[in-house]
């Protein structure tokens, strides 16, 4: 059903070109009207997104404190970013967060969506809304709440003590070994609801006859989940991955409001340093360079996700073609 997308450019354009060319005048006017409709949004997007991004790129080549005249330093800021060992460590933490902010939520979301679509639950809408709730809460509120949950006298430790595992109790976000995964799990909790809702919508779009066919072929719940539901959800999984990966890599508020990068440097992420460079050191050039570098890393990771998604897609397509 999506084979046309994979055709090469020349194959695509030739047969689809309309027989009679549209008069140029009319076409120009129609384009103009289209842009007029877009204009309010475009202006907004330009002023608040495009211009600041371009300014950041510009400032990243300067030594600039936000007040005095900036001086051109070429790639010095980028050299400083690349040679700062703290930033490499922070990037490492970000990649650990990919597991917690992206991989785990997608897996949990798939599991929950699979369950919800198969089992008839009374009050399903209410459950769905509840599970989606973390996504709409302010992350500052979430961070403060989790700080209480992870507290040395918080519910997790109380529970551990109650069942005789008091030795495991610790200040979860104040302990060098547990801080990073603990902060990561907050991200899992925020993101799985979004993934679940995306996947539920995707499942609703799968042809019911496919399930019938699968069941006639003798597929059980597990087989049906892995052979039909998951492959059919590929586009939704890619979207969920892109959203959660970006969230993981630019994550600042959760880390800042739970640990500030501590204890020691065990939960630092690049965006914590962007904040410190810009607002504490007033080294706006360096902050911009780091932000741009982070954007490039994010785009690269998202690119890999897209590539992986597409590769599997074409394999599936080939199989489908062979079968027909």
């Amino acid at each position, binding site marked *: 059903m999506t084979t046309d997308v994979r055709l090469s450019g020349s194959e695509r354009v030739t047969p689809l070109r309309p027989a009679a060319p549209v008069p140029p005048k009319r076409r120009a006017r129609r384009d103009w009207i289209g842009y007029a409709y877009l204009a309010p949004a475009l202006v907004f997007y330009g002023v608040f997104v495009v211009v600041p991004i371009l300014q950041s790129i510009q400032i990243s080549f300067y030594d600039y*404190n936000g*007040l005095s005249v900036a001086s051109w330093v070429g790639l010095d800021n980028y050299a400083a970013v690349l040679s700062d060992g703290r930033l490499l460590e922070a990037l490492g933490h970000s990649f650990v967060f990919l597991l917690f902010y992206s991989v785990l939520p997608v897996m949990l979301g798939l599991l929950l969506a699979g369950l919800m679509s198969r089992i008839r639950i009374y009050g399903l809408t209410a459950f769905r809304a509840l599970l989606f709730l973390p996504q709409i809460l302010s992350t500052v509120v979430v961070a403060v709440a989790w*700080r209480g949950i992870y507290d040395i006298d918080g519910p997790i430790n109380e529970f551990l003590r109650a069942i005789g595992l008091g030795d495991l109790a*610790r200040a979860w976000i*104040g302990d*060098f070994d547990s801080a990073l995964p603990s902060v990561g799990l907050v991200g899992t909790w925020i993101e799985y609801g979004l993934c679940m809702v995306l996947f539920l919508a995707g499942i609703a779009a799968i042809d019911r006859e496919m399930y019938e066919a699968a069941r006639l072929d003798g597929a059980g719940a597990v087989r049906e989940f892995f052979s039909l539901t998951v492959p059919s959800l590929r586009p939704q999984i890619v979207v969920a991955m892109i959203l959660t990966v970006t969230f993981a890599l630019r994550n600042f508020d959760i880390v800042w409001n739970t*640990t500030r990068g501590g*204890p020691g440097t065990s939960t630092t992420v690049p965006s914590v340093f962007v904040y*410190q460079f810009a607002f*504490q050191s007033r080294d706006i050039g360096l902050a911009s360079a780091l932000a741009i570098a982070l954007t490039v890393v994010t785009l690269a990771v998202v690119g890999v996700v897209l590539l992986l998604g597409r590769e599997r897609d074409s394999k599936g397509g080939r199989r489908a073609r062979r079968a027909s």
Partner: protein
Amino acid sequence: MTSNAFRSRRPHRVLLAAGVAALAVGLTACAPGSNSAGGAETEEITAEVTPEQVAELGDITLTGWADVAEQGLMEQFIPRFEEEYPNVTVDMQYKSFNDLIATVVNAANSKDAPDVFQGNIGYAVDGALVEAGLVRPLDDVAEVYGWDSDAAAETLAPARWNEDGTRFGSGTLYGMSVITEVQGIYYNKAKLQALGIEVPQSIDELEAALPVAAAAGEQPIMLGNADQYAAMHVYSDIAAAEQDPQDIRDWVFGEEDATFATEGNLAAAERIADWAQQGFFGEGYDGIGNEDAIARFAGGEGVFFVGGSWNGAKLTDAPAPGFGMSALPDGGVGAIASPWHISANSDASPAAIAFLDMLRTPETAQEIVDTGRLPVLLEGVTGDGELESETLAVADATIAAGGQVGYYDWTTTDMFSVMGGALQELMAGRTTAEEFADTVQADWEGTYAG
């Protein structure tokens, strides 16, 4: 449908190319930040500003930005000021400390900059203000009003800067603070009595009391270090007891060849790590915020709380016997609160000067005490309750002992997080005292060496 989408892609490519070209031109065109508003001429004063001079300004509004912590004081002070100078209306805006330091520099750089405002000691705020010429030099004012010869003259040092705003501690005066902060040992009176411990008067006496408290099943010191700064204060109190405060001051103000790896600092590092390893700070202190820790202490957890005088406000309402504060006469760092500045572009500078003058008077000092803070001018002020009086005594003792050396984290713009994080590692037993000192000194050298 697809065909139209396809054809319109070509113009997009052209647009994109044009955009890239425009970007390349823009990048090399003009440097950002060339429209700085600073650099107005200053009219120096040679005599005190008179009410007549202020009256000559006509009906004016003196605009200001202040830390919200000053609001209580300002609400008493401003009506008194407006009575003295009836043609002046003060319009003061209050910001939380974090909002203030994040935005005050840009506000000072705007066309309608406030006439008077609070900055913050160190390079990120005051240094930027000085470098950009946004604040009025105050040497003439200090001389005329005798600030540089009164009892608190030494507290002006952190507001003195060299010309390009790269070193502070001496040089031209650019700000003035009337509020100070001291460190001390808060103690739970009932628990000391029950444990039979005398009020500790030094770090050594405190150290001797810790195992006694621990043996009785109490948490000796309440600490909340999730924000990474509470332990820094405990550390600096120990460090100040281990060496001549002057050594710390030299390092804080970036004297040449100063080093953090002094015997005193290393001994203090070993001591605080030892305290932490023995469990004197309890468990999980890195997971508790300072605000939570002081609330727990107020609620009766822990025997001691080592920290700054700003924590006292949470302890004053406790039922008897309540809490006391003990000085660290052999140490105990402290520093002034955010200094007040006059905008270099103020068109009401006589009124602004009168405002700062009136802040530094005994009447205002009493108002500062009455609103729960510590004035730099301590002579003649009296505290309301027992804890307030004790805190005043602590401030007196600390200033007399020369312990007001400032804070370690003033040294560089990121020392707060570098030292805060390194101290957490040290206390968790992950690094040695030497490694801790190396990390801190490396950051210091990044700013001061060469």
